[in-house]
C-alpha cells in the first residue's frame, strides 16, 4: 500500500517535470498564437500597407508603422555601433589580455553592474545628463534643441548593451584554442596581430552572434528609449530627430488605445517585434551553440 503510493508519487513527479518542460517550450508558440489572434482585427483592417504607411493617425483610424520601423532600426543599429568598440575592447581585456586574477574579476563585476541598473533608471539618468549635453550640441549645430531624440536614446541604449555584449563576446573569445594562439605567437606575431589576425577572424561567427543577440535586445528595449526618444510619430529627418520605436509606441499608447482596431494594431506591432526578436535570438543562439562545441 505504502509502496504503491510511492510509485504513484514518483510517476506524478516525472510526469510533472515533462509537462513543465514542454509547456515552457511551447510558450513561444502560445505567445505567437495569442498575439496573432488578438491582432487579427488590426491586420485585416490595415493590410500589408501597414508596414510602409507613413501616417499614424489613430483618431482617423489610419495606421502606418513605417516611422516606428525606421525609428527602431536607426536607434538599435546606432546604439550597437556606438557600443561595439567598447564591448569588443572590454571583451578582449577580460577574455584574452587578463582572463584570470583579482583585478579583471573586479572589472568584470563592475561592468556587470551596468546590467543591474533598471531600464527606467537609465532613461531617467539620460534625461538629466545625456539629454542636456545633446541639446548643447544641437544648439551649436543650429538645430532645434529638444535634447531628446534618436541620438540621445542610442547613446544610453549603447551603455545598456555593453554588459550583455561583453559577456557574450568574452565567452566566445575565451574559447579560442590555446594551440591556435600559440602557433601564431610562435611565428613571432605581436599580441595585436594575434588578436586581429587569429582570434577575431577565427571567432567571427561567434562574435557576430553576440552582436546579433545584442541587436535583439536593443530592438525590444522599452523604458529608457520611451523616456529619451522624444515620442514623435513622424519620419525622422536625421539622427537627432525625435522619433518613436515600436516598443515605445506600445508602451505609451496601449492603455489609452480606444477602439478595437487601435488596440489590435498596437498588438500587431508587438507581434512584429516578437517575430523579429524570436528569429534573431534563434539564429544567434544556434550560432553560439555551434561554435561552443
Amino acid at each position: 500500500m505504502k509502496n504503491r503510493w510511492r510509485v504513484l508519487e514518483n510517476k506524478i513527479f516525472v510526469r510533472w517535470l515533462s509537462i513543465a518542460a514542454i509547456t515552457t517550450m511551447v510558450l513561444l508558440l502560445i505567445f505567437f498564437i495569442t498575439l496573432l489572434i488578438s491582432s487579427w482585427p488590426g491586420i485585416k483592417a490595415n493590410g500589408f500597407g501597414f508596414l510602409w504607411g507613413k501616417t499614424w493617425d489613430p483618431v482617423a483610424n489610419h495606421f502606418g508603422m513605417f516611422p516606428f520601423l525606421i525609428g527602431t532600426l536607426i536607434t538599435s543599429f546606432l546604439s550597437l555601433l556606438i557600443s561595439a568598440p567598447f564591448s569588443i575592447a572590454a571583451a578582449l581585456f577580460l577574455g584574452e589580455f587578463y582572463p584570470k586574477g583579482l583585478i579583471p574579476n573586479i572589472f568584470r563585476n563592475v561592468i556587470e553592474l551596468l546590467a543591474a541598473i533598471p531600464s527606467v533608471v537609465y532613461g531617467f539618468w539620460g534625461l538629466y545628463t545625456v539629454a542636456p549635453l545633446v541639446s548643447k550640441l544641437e544648439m551649436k549645430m543650429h538645430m532645434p534643441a529638444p535634447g531628446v531624440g534618436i541620438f540621445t536614446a542610442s547613446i544610453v541604449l549603447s551603455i545598456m548593451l555593453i554588459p550583455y555584449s561583453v559577456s557574450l563576446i568574452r565567452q566566445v573569445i575565451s574559447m579560442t584554442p590555446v594551440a591556435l594562439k600559440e602557433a601564431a605567437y610562435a611565428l613571432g606575431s605581436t599580441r595585436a596581430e594575434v588578436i586581429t589576425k587569429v582570434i577575431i577572424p577565427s571567432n567571427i561567427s561567434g562574435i557576430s552572434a553576440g552582436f546579433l543577440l545584442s541587436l535583439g535586445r536593443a530592438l525590444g528595449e522599452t523604458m529608457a528609449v520611451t523616456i529619451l526618444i522624444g515620442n514623435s510619430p513622424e519620419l525622422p529627418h536625421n539622427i537627432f530627430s525625435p522619433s518613436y520605436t515600436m516598443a515605445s509606441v506600445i508602451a505609451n499608447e496601449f492603455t489609452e488605445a480606444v477602439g478595437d482596431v487601435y488596440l489590435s494594431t498596437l498588438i500587431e506591432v508587438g507581434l512584429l517585434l516578437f517575430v523579429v526578436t524570436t528569429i534573431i535570438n534563434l539564429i544567434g543562439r544556434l550560432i553560439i551553440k555551434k561554435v561552443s562545441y
Partner: protein
Amino acid sequence: MTPYEIRGLQGRRIKDKIFTSVVWGLTFSCLAVVFIILFYIFKMGIPSLNWALFSQGPKPVGESGGGILNAIVGSLIVVVIAAIIAIPVGVSVGIFLAENRGRKLADRVALAIDVLQGIPSIVIGIVIYVWIVKPTGKFSAYSGSIALAIMMLPPIIKNTEETLILIPTTLKEASLALGASYFRTTMKILLPAGIGGIFSGCIIGIARIAGEVAPLLFTAFGNPQLTGSIFKPVDTIPKVIFTYASSPYDDWHRIAWGGSVILVSFIIVLNTIIKIFESRWKVQF
C-alpha cells in the same frame, strides 16, 4: 637577424602598443561610465531619502512631500508572487533538462528557453494583458506577477540545470541503490546538494525583474492607493519612477530619484549575495 625581421619590426611594435592602449582605454571608459552613472544616481537620490518616502503614499499634485509606500508594498507583492510562481516551475524544468541532457527534446526546450530570454518584456506584457486583464476586465497585481514570472524562468532554469549536472551521478545512484524513488532522490539528495546554485538562480531572476516596468504597464498598471490585494492594480517602484520621471514637477523628480536609489541598491545587494553564494556556498563532493 635576417632582413625580414628588421624591416617593420619597429612599426609592428608601435602598432601593438597602440592596440593595447586602445583596449585599455576603452575598457577603462566602460568602468568609468559605471561609476559616473552610479555616482549620479546616488548623488541625486540620497538627499531625497527620508522617512516620508518610506512611510507615506503620494500627495496630490501641487502639495509637496509624500512618498512611495504604496509602490514599495506593490513591488514586494508583485515580485514575491512572481517568485512563488516561477521558482517551482523553473526548478522543475531545470531538473528535467539536467536529467535528459543530450536528448533531442531537452535540446529543444533549452533552445526555447534561450529564445524566451530574448523576447522583449513589453511583448510579454501584451500577452498577459490578452490572457488575464482583458477577460477579467481589470488590471491586477497577480497578472503583473505572471508576466514577471515568465521573465524569471530562464535564469532559474539555467542555473538549476548547470548546478545539477555538476553533481556526480554516483550520488544519485547511491540513493537509488538504497531503494529511494527518483522523486525522493531528487528532493533529498540532488536539490540539497545543488541548493547554492539553485538559490543564486532564483536571486538572479529576482534581480532581473525587480526593475521591470514594461511588462507591468498593462498588467499591474499602477495605483496611488496603498493596497495589499493581489486582485487590485498596484504601483511598483520602477513604475513610479517612470511616471514621475516623465512628469514636469521637480518634487516628483525628487521622489523618482529616491525610488531609483532604493531600487538600484536593492538590485546591487542581490548581485552581491549572488557573488558571495557562488564563491562560498558550494557543496564539496
